[in-house]
């Protein structure tokens, strides 16, 4: 046995580099311990503790944002610490906090075990944070599986609701299929890059840096091409890009609302985090990845927007509009693939952040409007919201406006930046499709705003069959207000945050 290699490998296990993930994981375990230790009536403390702990980790991450590990690889090449990785870590942690806040509201309506929900959300978030820094296929796959296995449980969490169970089963089957595609692709790339008959073959063929060098030395290898397309397909499942979007409406509808938000924001962002890493790894094959991603992006934008037009269930509507958002983000990925522009990477990250703010504002309002049955949320239920709950209606309008990309909200800036990046990369055709998609999307987003502000509940005197709206607690009110405010402020003034994203 070669002990020097092993010693070097052991020395690169710098646990301090993944301290936020470790703390999050320990906090998640701690919640389960508390559940056993604390008496039943004190259990309300645990979610509050979970949220406070996550906020503390987020603050710690910000204080230590420019860690000494930036630009280095640790854990024997498994992880690569970059500024993008740091941004995404904060992103996933923030979405985990917001999901926990929504979870408190939504779980109060159900007779369900509470603590496991927060535990799984935090474990999934820790895996996402690792995924954003992956530099190796093994880590990528293990982190991705941790995320999806967690989501199988979360999606079918309200197990007394048949729609939730159906969603869980569909997600399980589709997730297994996508993992299979991804693995097939990884195996092909691993095999072909380790083949001693080819130039620049490598023993570390799962490592992205080594793989990139190999691909550059073998510009048109058929097996590698098939592997690349399969890996991209596997990831496309996770972000819900056409033709792998078929699971989205049913799963989004059946899952509990906070989980839908988690799927829509964090899971999608995780997919794009991998996609950005992979596109740069596959850069020598840009003549293959660019057309594949271009067709995918165009089809995704058109399908998402056209399918969302006819929806009455707001969760399905948001799911399909999320497909369209994945399309706009793919437009940015195509720009990265075609020209490797740093502007496009910054634009994608800005878009993701604006999408997080707007989506969680909308999902937050949905959690308060929904009743016991989480899958039954129609546009009709929003009638009179403007009169009875002006606060919720305002937050909803700002969130939807930002999603639609109405200036001066943050969503507009996100779209603008992505479109500029695409214009600079010379993707005029795709840009036309995207602008067409945006125009369509305004129809359904404003249909929802209209339902909230200008519609009244059916006829005068008709029985009100809508679920009762939940009272907005102070925490939820503060969270929603700050999300809406951030959407507005980020639209006017990007400040140092925008500079940092664009000028790296």
């Amino acid at each position, binding site marked *: 046995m070669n002990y020097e290699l092993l*010693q070097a490998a052991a020395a690169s296990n710098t646990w301090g580099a993944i301290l936020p993930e470790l703390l999050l994981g320990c906090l998640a375990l701690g919640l389960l311990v508390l559940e056993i230790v604390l008496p039943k009536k004190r259990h309300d403390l645990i979610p509050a503790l979970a949220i406070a702990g996550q906020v503390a980790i987020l603050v710690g991450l910000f204080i230590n944002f420019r860690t000494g590990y930036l630009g280095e690889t640790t854990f024997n090449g498994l992880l690569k610490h970059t500024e993008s990785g740091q941004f995404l870590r904060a992103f996933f942690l923030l979405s985990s906090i917001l999901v926990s806040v929504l979870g408190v509201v939504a779980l109060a309506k159900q007779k369900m075990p509470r603590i496991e929900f927060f535990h799984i959300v935090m474990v999934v978030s820790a895996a996402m944070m690792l995924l954003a820094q992956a530099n190796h296929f093994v880590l990528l796959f293990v982190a991705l599986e941790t995320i999806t296995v967690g989501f199988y449980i979360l999606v079918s969490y309200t197990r007394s609701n048949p729609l939730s169970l159906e969603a869980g089963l569909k997600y399980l089957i589709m997730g297994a299929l996508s993992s299979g595609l991804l693995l097939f692709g990884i195996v092909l790339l691993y095999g072909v890059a380790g083949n001693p008959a080819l130039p620049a073959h490598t023993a570390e063929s799962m490592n992205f840096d080594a793989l990139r060098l190999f691909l550059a030395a073998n510009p048109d290898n058929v097996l590698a091409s098939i592997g690349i397309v399969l890996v991209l397909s596997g990831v496309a499942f996770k972000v819900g890009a056409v033709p792998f979007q078929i699971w989205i409406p049913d799963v989004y509808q059946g899952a509990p609302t906070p989980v839908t938000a988690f799927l829509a924001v964090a899971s999608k962002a995780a997919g794009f985090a991998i996609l950005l890493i992979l596109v740069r790894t596959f850069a020598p094959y840009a003549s293959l990845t660019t057309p594949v991603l271009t067709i995918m992006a165009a089809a995704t934008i058109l399908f998402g927007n056209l399918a969302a037009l006819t929806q009455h269930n707001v969760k399905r509507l948001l799911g399909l509009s999320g497909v369209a958002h994945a399309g706009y983000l793919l437009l940015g990925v195509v720009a990265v693939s075609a020209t490797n522009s740093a502007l496009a990477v910054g634009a994608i990250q800005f878009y993701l952040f604006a999408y997080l703010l707007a989506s969680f504002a909308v999902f937050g309002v949905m959690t308060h409007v929904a009743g016991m049955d989480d899958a039954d949320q129609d546009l009709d239920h929003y009638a009179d919201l403007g009169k009875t709950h002006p606060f919720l209606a305002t937050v909803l309008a700002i969130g939807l406006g930002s999603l639609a990309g109405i200036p001066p909200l943050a969503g507009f800036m996100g779209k603008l930046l992505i479109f500029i990046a695409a214009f600079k990369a010379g993707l005029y055709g795709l840009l036309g499709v995207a602008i067409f998609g945006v125009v369509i999307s305004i129809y359904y987003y404003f249909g929802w705003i209209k339902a909230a502000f200008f519609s009244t509940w059916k006829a005068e005197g008709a029985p009100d069959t809508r679920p009762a709206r939940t009272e907005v607690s102070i925490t939820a009110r503060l969270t929603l207000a700050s999300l809406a405010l951030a959407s507005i402020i980020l639209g006017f003034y990007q400040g140092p945050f925008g500079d940092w994203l664009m000028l790296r």
Partner: protein
Amino acid sequence: MTSAAYLPILIQVILATGVGLAILTVNRVLAQRVRTKNAIKDSAYECGVKSEGVIHTRFSVKFYVTAMLFILFDIEVVFLIPWAFIYRDFLANNIAILSPILFFLFVLVLGLVYEVKKGALEWEK
């Protein structure tokens, strides 16, 4: 690698197909069945009375829980065996291997305590 090196795999594939086919053929030839086409006479019977209820009974969910917990701990022990083989060599060469496995065992025991406290091991509730 020459293609001759893949010969064992080919033999394995042929063997697998051959055994499967052989079992099916033997069953076809030797099985006791009515030669004429008569589905009722070939069906499972209960002392000549019409069979009642479903053939596949549903198992209690307790069995699944136990099986799942077994697999969980079984696989975790699988990690311990290679560790036990190499830890002396690693320690002799100053490679930290003790504290990671202790943390792993700590989480394992924590899981066991959680399981017991949650009542997953109580058969009768």
